[in-house]
């Protein structure tokens, strides 16, 4: 036991010794990154990560996405399933803050109401912004009822019209007069969670399979290598689609949701397994690992106590780089009608509405979920890049 503790990696040992407050440490680390030699591994990683400016900004962006996903009900002005047939394809309303009238001005947010025009040729109803009628908007307004975190019953929303049934479509409405902004906010929750849960599942598979292959090597390793090569040589989208098309039609949305994430992770674990296997192979020959083994430590202990801490950062990096792929895959599947199905709202399901060019020409705001996808995927990629640079703070 004493033997093994002494043989902990330098990082492990440092973690116990360093007892000063984190902030003081980081201030010392920041300028020019001169390591004092007493920082823990994670402090070094954080300091490295902070140097990657894009990654830092992206982290904030993803934090906003996460907040949107967690507080979706509160942030959405309208019930995303609420059909307002009177306002189909209503254009976005601009939010004004300063209300001017005959008496002067005051700060009172409002949007303009719509007026309906009938196009002469196509006899189609078109909504225009009517600058003569104002709809006053209030923060923490009463709206549809919901349960925050599934527990606390509430009916307040960040923003809402003063009179409940008045239209408020800050980024427009869809085919059935549902509020795009609310749908986008709800979609964020589903799309991000698919990415997160999918990656968690492939992480589990990847660490298990890659770990076994890397630690024991031999026949099992050779077999997994072949399986990985095989899976990587396939065009993924058709295969994903085949698997999701095979789902029974009478499954509930929740079942479909989990089936889709499972399908994504079944084909997505390979890259993670490759990384884990590589790290295991590299660490197996380290002195401290051999020492622990000779000291009679069990395999489980050697792996969990000595090896895993040494490559956790690499796993986190690989996982964060895998999330955008998951999000993109779910979006593509749902877009094609083979992923999540209609009552469930995800970015891909929302984009399905934008398939028709004529619809798109009259209501370009239906592409808004696309912007969310691009921003989220870019941000995740940058975070992954930043983590990759920071993952191994002892190099250079």
């Amino acid at each position: 036991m004493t033997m093994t503790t002494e043989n902990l990696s330098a990082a492990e040992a440092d973690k116990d010794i360093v007892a000063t407050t984190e902030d003081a440490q980081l201030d010392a680390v920041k300028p020019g990154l001169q390591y004092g030699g007493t920082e823990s591994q994670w402090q070094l990683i954080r300091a490295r990560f902070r140097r990657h400016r894009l990654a830092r900004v992206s982290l904030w962006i993803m934090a906003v996405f996460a907040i949107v996903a967690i507080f979706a009900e509160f942030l959405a002005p309208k019930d995303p399933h609420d059909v307002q047939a009177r306002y189909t394809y209503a254009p976005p309303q601009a939010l004004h803050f300063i209300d001017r009238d005959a008496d002067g001005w005051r700060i009172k947010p409002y949007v303009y109401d719509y007026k309906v025009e009938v196009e002469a040729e196509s006899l189609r109803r078109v909504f225009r912004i009517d600058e003569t009628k104002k709809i006053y908007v209030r923060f923490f307004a009463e709206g549809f009822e919901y349960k925050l975190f599934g527990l606390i019953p509430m009916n307040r929303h960040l923003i809402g019209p003063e009179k409940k049934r008045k239209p408020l479509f800050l980024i427009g409405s869809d085919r059935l007069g549902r509020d795009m902004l609310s749908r986008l906010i709800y979609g964020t929750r589903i799309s991000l969670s698919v990415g997160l849960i999918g990656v968690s599942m492939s992480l589990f598979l990847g660490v298990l399979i890659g770990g076994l292959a890397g630690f024991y090597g031999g026949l099992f390793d050779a077999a997994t290598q072949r399986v990985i090569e095989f899976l990587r040589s396939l065009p993924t989208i058709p295969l994903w689609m085949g698997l999701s098309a095979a789902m029974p039609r009478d499954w509930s949305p929740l079942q479909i949701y989990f089936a889709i994430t499972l399908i994504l992770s079944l084909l997505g674990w390979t890259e993670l397994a490759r990384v884990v296997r590589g790290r295991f192979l590299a660490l197996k020959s380290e002195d401290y690992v051999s020492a622990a083994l000779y000291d009679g430590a069990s395999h489980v202990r050697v792996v969990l106590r000595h090896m895993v801490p040494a490559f956790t950062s690499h796993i986190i990096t690989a996982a964060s780089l895998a999330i955008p792929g998951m999000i993109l895959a779910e979006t593509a599947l749902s877009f094609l009608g083979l992923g999540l199905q209609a009552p469930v709202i995800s970015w891909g399901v929302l984009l399905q509405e934008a398939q028709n060019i004529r619809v798109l020409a009259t209501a370009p705001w239906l592409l808004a979920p696309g912007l969310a996808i691009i921003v989220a995927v870019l941000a995740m990629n940058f975070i992954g890049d930043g983590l990759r640079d920071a993952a191994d703070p002892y190099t250079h």
Partner: protein
Amino acid sequence: MIAYLARRLIAMILTLLILSMVVFVVIQLPPGDFVTSYIARLSSMGEVPDENVVEAIRAQYKLDDPLFVQYWAWLEGMFTGNFGFSFEMKRPVAEIFSQRIGISLTVEILAIVVMWGIAIPIGIYSAVYQYSVGDYVATIVGFLGIAVPNFLFALILMYVCYVWFGVTITGLNSPDFANERWSLAKLLDFASHVWAPVLVIATGGAATLIRVLRANLLDELKKPYVLTARAKGLKRHKVIMRYPVRVAMNPLISVVGWVLPTVISSSFVTAIVLNMPTLSPILLRALLSQDMYLAGALILFMGFLTMIGTLLSDILLAWIDPRIRMGMIGAR
């Protein structure tokens, strides 16, 4: 070289066999067998299934036999070109295949050519002029290429062309030409349509290629032999094009192996958005109506195409790099 080729061929055949098993499992996944879903589909169209036809299908797919026999019968059909029958189009699958495979392949090959055509000059430029404005632009465009899903790019392109230029870029031929025989006029019309899907498919992969080439070339440019060649008075562009670029290109050829699956995947989605008469819409419709035999045949076929492509790239790589030919280093 021959030994190497033989090894690769055997590996490919084994992979195909495994893929066929996976696909067969996928075919078997939906509840109920082929005939029950066939009857369901017929009755949903208001037709009464013919007893003889049902029996014939049962016999053809050997549905009363054990699973292994069924698999073998199906595989045999795949090899002899008997891909089954599409219920929606009421035609044998093989006929649809032969009609559409040419267009699918043309678009995909064009996309790969364009991908390399874009990636190589840009990759070289951003490595040689590292941190220049052009390099930053290339990096940003590259990141966008990774982050924007193909179908979204296709949608945006479609929207921009329609709203700004009043052009619909769906399909691969104007309606007037759709059923014509191939002629120069039709070819020109084809060219005026095909650029959109080719561009969409090419950008996604090009982004990755640019990053790979840039990184490799940057490593290579730092090596002393480049400095030596320059010191001896060789012109800058001559040095770069003749030595470091050639070395940096090698990994670019080996990535064909994983670029191909991506190209086939993305051409699939793009074809559906842009409504192209390729195999993809047929696969999508087959999947949506759970016509699993047709879908399975198509997926297997796409996998087969991918593997042929990978094999070709391996051969190309072995031909270019003697170290791989001699088995000194792996192809990937």
